[in-house]
Structures are given as C-alpha cells and as structure tokens.
C-alpha cells in the first residue's frame, strides 16, 4: 500500500461537520479574523439569517465556535469567534484535504 492510498483513506475520516460547504465557509471566515458579528458573516457568506443561525448552532454545539450576545449601543449584537478546538479542526481538515487532493492532476 502506498502513501497515496493512506491519504485517500483519510478522506473517509474527514470531519463532516467542517466538510459541509456553508459551515466550511463560516469557519474559514472566522479563521481569518479575531471575531466578527452576525451581520458581517451574513454579508461575507451571503447565507440567509435562518441558515446561518442553524449552522452556527451546530458549530457551537461541537465547541468550534463561541457565540457571545451583547449590545452595540442599544442594538443587540451577536459576536462570533472560533475556539481553539475549532481552529484545530480547520487545520486538520486543511491538512487532510491538502494531502489527498494536492497531487491531483486533471
């Protein structure tokens, strides 16, 4: 068995919570910032409020995202931040996908 086979097998064990496109997009945005609010995430990802809320709940339940409810003046503001576990999950996902697809030739 070659190295390629082992990289390929790792694909089957990829974190499915991260692998879902909308959640991956949310995680990638949060990976690149310290924190962002709900409005910013909606604008960057172009997901609907309901869709974004639903994905964020799943990511929060897994401990990947920290959700903080607060106020900006009198308006409520939801601030989102990637946890260390979330950062590690994204790094692991990048590594797995990179190894498996890195040498792929069309």
């Amino acid at each position, binding site marked *: 068995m070659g190295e390629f086979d082992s990289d390929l097998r790792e694909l089957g064990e990829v974190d499915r919570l991260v692998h879902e496109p909308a959640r991956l997009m949310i995680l990638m945005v949060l990976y690149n910032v310290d924190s962002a609010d709900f409005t910013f995430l909606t604008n960057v990802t172009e997901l609907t409020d309901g869709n974004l809320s639903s994905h964020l709940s799943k990511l929060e339940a897994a401990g990947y995202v920290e959700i903080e409810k607060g106020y*900006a003046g009198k308006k409520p503001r939801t601030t989102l931040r990637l946890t260390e576990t979330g950062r590690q999950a994204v790094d692991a996902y990048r590594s797995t996908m990179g190894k498996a697809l890195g040498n792929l030739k069309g």
Partner: protein
Amino acid sequence: MSELTDFRQIQRRITQLTTFEDGFWDMLLGAIFIHLSSYNLTRELLGPGGNLVLYFVVLGLLVTAQLVLRNLVSVPRIGHVKARRSPKMLLVLALTAGMVLVTFGVLLLTFLSPGAVQTQVPPEPSGPRGYLVEFIVLLAMGGLFSLMGYLFQVRRLYLYGWMLGTANLASIYMEHNYGWTFLLPLAIAGGVILLIGFLRLVRFLQAYPLRLEQR
C-alpha cells in the same frame, strides 16, 4: 451562496469589504491629493514650516472624518469585524505602512525640491533629466498601488497609482514651464478619485441597506 473557495480569496474578500467597498478610502485618498495640489499656494501664505503643519493637521482631520463616517455609515451595514493579529498579518501591515510612508516621503521630497521651492520666480524650463524625482514618484506610486491592487484584487488601484504619478509629473512640468502654482493635474486626479469614491458609496448604500434588526 458566494464562491469562496480558498483562504486567500476569503482574506481578500474580508479586506475588500472592510476597506474598499464603501468608497471612504477612495474619498480620503482623493481629498489628500486635492489638498496637496494647493501646497504651493498655501506655502506662499504660511511659509514652509506653517504649510507642513497645515498639511498634517488637514491630513489628521481627513483621517478622523473617514474613521467616524465609516463607524456611523458602514459598520451598521456590513457588520463589525475585528482583525486577527497574526505575525503574518502584522508583517503585511508593517510592509504596507512602510511602502506608503516611502511613497509619501518621496512625494513630499518632490514638493520640497529646488524647482518647487522657488515659487516667486518661475524656474527655467528643464529637460527630462530635470524630472528624475518625479519619474521616481511615478514609478513608486504606480508600483505601490498596483501591488495593493493585485494583493487585494481591487482593480481601480492600478488606475489610481499611475494616474496620481502622471498627474504629479504633469503638475511639476506645468509649474516649471508655465509657472502654475496651483497643481491642477494633481487636483483633477484627486477629484476623479473622490468622485469614484462617492459613486462607490452610493452603490454601497444601495447594496447594503441598514438592517432593522441586529442579530
């Protein structure tokens, strides 16, 4: 759903949205160069020292106005984001700040060059060799803005760099050969950038309406 496929693309999108989308950055740049275009006129009134103080006071006021307006107009629409202070980000920030400082330094050197200082008597017309500093400014500005345009995928920055560099060269040429103390080409270039910024702001306000409820 948008096509955000890789990390670099996401970083670019975040920078575009937080810096270049609302047009305030363009308006600040345009206003700075419009102010620079009257540099010779205000120097005659205030003297070199006073003029430099005026330049930095106006620059401070413009930057403050831009920050306040951005907080009042843009943040409620695009949302609030706090940049991540990774070593790589700090390096990019330091390099950008360094390049901006060098470019503005060279530009100020242009205004303080012997031809520019003697405003009472129009200087003798000079050949291409007499414009070495202006050619360096042209290359520096064109290069800096093109690099920024390439890195952030903001195509209008290519135009800004070469237009400002050429306008600076034309301004100094007009001053040397025709005694123009008001640097009209630079004012026009600044005006064009200001107008582009304003049009971007109008488009931004239409594209990102104020959300009635903040989630």
